[in-house]
């Protein structure tokens, strides 16, 4: 049964990791615009020349 304690702390650590990733992504502006990236994919010219956008 004691193994559950370890599993729980692992799962909590994992979840904290996700929370931190989410925090990072909000701060870096990934959630500012949820629509244009989807449309940018359709821009034929850009996808040929570079993929940075």
């Amino acid at each position, binding site marked *: 049964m004691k193994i559950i304690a370890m599993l729980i702390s692992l799962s909590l650590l994992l979840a904290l990791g996700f929370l931190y990733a989410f925090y990072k992504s909000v701060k870096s502006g990934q959630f500012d615009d949820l629509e244009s990236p989807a449309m940018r994919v359709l*821009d034929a010219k*850009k996808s040929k020349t570079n993929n940075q*956008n």
Partner: protein
Amino acid sequence: MKSTPLDISLKYKQFDLVENFNQLVDYQNDTIYGVGISLPAIHCSSCIELLEDLPSFYEGIRSAKVNFEQRKCTVTASKELPLSFVAQLLEDLGYPPQISISQKLKEAEKTVNKNNLLKLAVAGFCFGNIMLFSMPHYFGLQVVNDAFFARIFSVLSVMLSLPVVFYAGRDYLNSAYRALAAGKSHLNIPIAIGILSLFGWSLYEIFSGVGIGYLDSLAGLIFFLLIGKWFQHKVYDQVSYTRNVQEFIPLVVRQLVAGETIWSRIDELKKGDQVLIKNEEVIPVNGTLSRGYGVIDYAFITGEALPEQVKEGEQVYAGGCQKAGELVVTLLEEPSIDKLWSTWSSQTSKKAFTDRWTDHISKYFTLAVIVIAVVSAVVWSFSSIEKALFVFSSVLIVACPCALALSAPFTFGNILRVFSRNNFFVKEAEAIATLSRIDHVVLDKTGTITENTAMSVSYIGEELDVATASAVKTIASQSTHPLSNAVSEFLGKYQSLHINSFEEIPGKGIQGEVAGRMIRLGASHWLRDTESKDTAVYVSVDGEVIGHFKISASYRSGLKEVLNRLSKRVRLSILSGDNAGEREALKEIFPNFFQLKFNLTPQQKTVEVGKIQYDQKVLMIGDGLNDSSAIEQGDLGIAITENLNGFYPGSDAVLVSTSFDKLPAFMELAGYSKKVLKWSLVFSLCYNVAGVTFAVLGLLTPIIAAILMPLSSVSVVLLDTLLVRIKSRKLNLI
């Protein structure tokens, strides 16, 4: 491609002034600058493609990146390219930019919402995990008997609840504290009491080893509260209410100095200076017209839809928009922006909604809960002090106003979303509560119940044969005068003919020779030597007047139905700044106006609204600047606009004119919100009564609390959302 010189419009030129420039740009160094520009016209993926391709067309532009959700483009450009050039370029491409300093201030609010998103994430994360640790309790498992796990679960729950209370729930505690310090009642007070008593009692239970507390309910409560707040911000982001009057008057003008045109700042001008006003530009100062012929649209200031004709030597006023050709204006006074606009922007302060009925309920609610808690504690104290303490805190916990606190934000939040989907943008959720109590609707006429853009034209006189009609259309289409435009549009189906000569006679009309006939279109005093009261364009062929076009503003489609539907709920009045010429036409559309007043100045309108307010709640609906103080005066003010780029001082809500016919449905939905709130109140009271009964009897076991409390929050949220959606569907709003 090399950048080509553009004819840069007056309104953009002011961006190049050093102090404005510094405020507008996001960053700059010696060679480049970056600026975020709102482009409301962005609407599809091709827009993104076009705008982001700008760097390959214009050397000076280093990069362009579109944010579709915010309708914004971030441009990096080299300093050789002035900001006014970038703005003009965007406008020429079909994306008129919205750059302004107050727009910049709104950016700060975006960060607030970013923080709300983070708080929501933290609360959600902790809520989920705390629930996980409380699972054994939900199922009545005996893990609690295993002291080791009970300990671990409890300690972890406490650790997880700390960020929920002190980070995510911080705003609620702070605002409750501020309200208490100011001696005011506020819905956040019972919420704060609930949060603190839940937290305090849970800590006591956990550290004294009595139980595991109610941290799951606590985290859930804050999580749901934050979701409601997030909704509200999303809606608010779509409209800017913060623009102010200065943005509509140019700060830089073309000054004529010894025949040369130079750019000058408006506050550097002196009395007697001459400024050049081009077509479609706003007159920045009061002055006399010294050259050119004015066709000046004062709609923004007086609400008068038809432009005024001004001859040389006559006065023109700041705020008017020139509609035909160039003007030279000589200043009559030294311009002072503050003075110019003081008349109609006197108070555009934010209106506080005084009647938040949830506040009233929360006052009684808080009182009742505390009374019940104290009384039952006193009664229990006769048998055991410890039991009395337990009963006291369990009453506070179980009566926590979760449902009460959640139902208003969720109901209003859902309604806000439905409204904004229908192009009706309400500034604050509380405005919906006010909208539901309105019993008198006051409408402005011009621009509110009439169309701003379309004029209705009718022809009176000898019948026009095809040849004459074509000739008249040909002549009318030569001029940019708004009345000629209206006539040529009215005769749209006729073909244009070859024109032999054409002349525009300022102040009188236009004339030209078509197919050997001399056609004149113009004012009554030119063609008939008499003045006419109506706005009319007379037609003469070879010197003989054959009839006239009567021009009036046309009413919005569906006006009659809107008025009839509204009149079932409220009284209706019209306060207009125009002449009484339309009185009979209005009575024909709707006979039962409570008041029908004309020739009112903006100040008189405000006074009239105030008079009605003695015994009634007034909704004032108007447009633009001339109504702003009346809109401010009303218990609720709605500004009608053709597009969202406009500006609406003093208004609590903005209605896009295409949704005018949905106004009765909006009011009905707002009225329904009262019913929804009542139902959810009854619903949550049932929970509370049941819970408090258990608590008072000292029977509140953790399992009952664990089931009762989350259930009441979730079910109220679901009930509210469902009821609003069903009603909106019935009203064809979704």
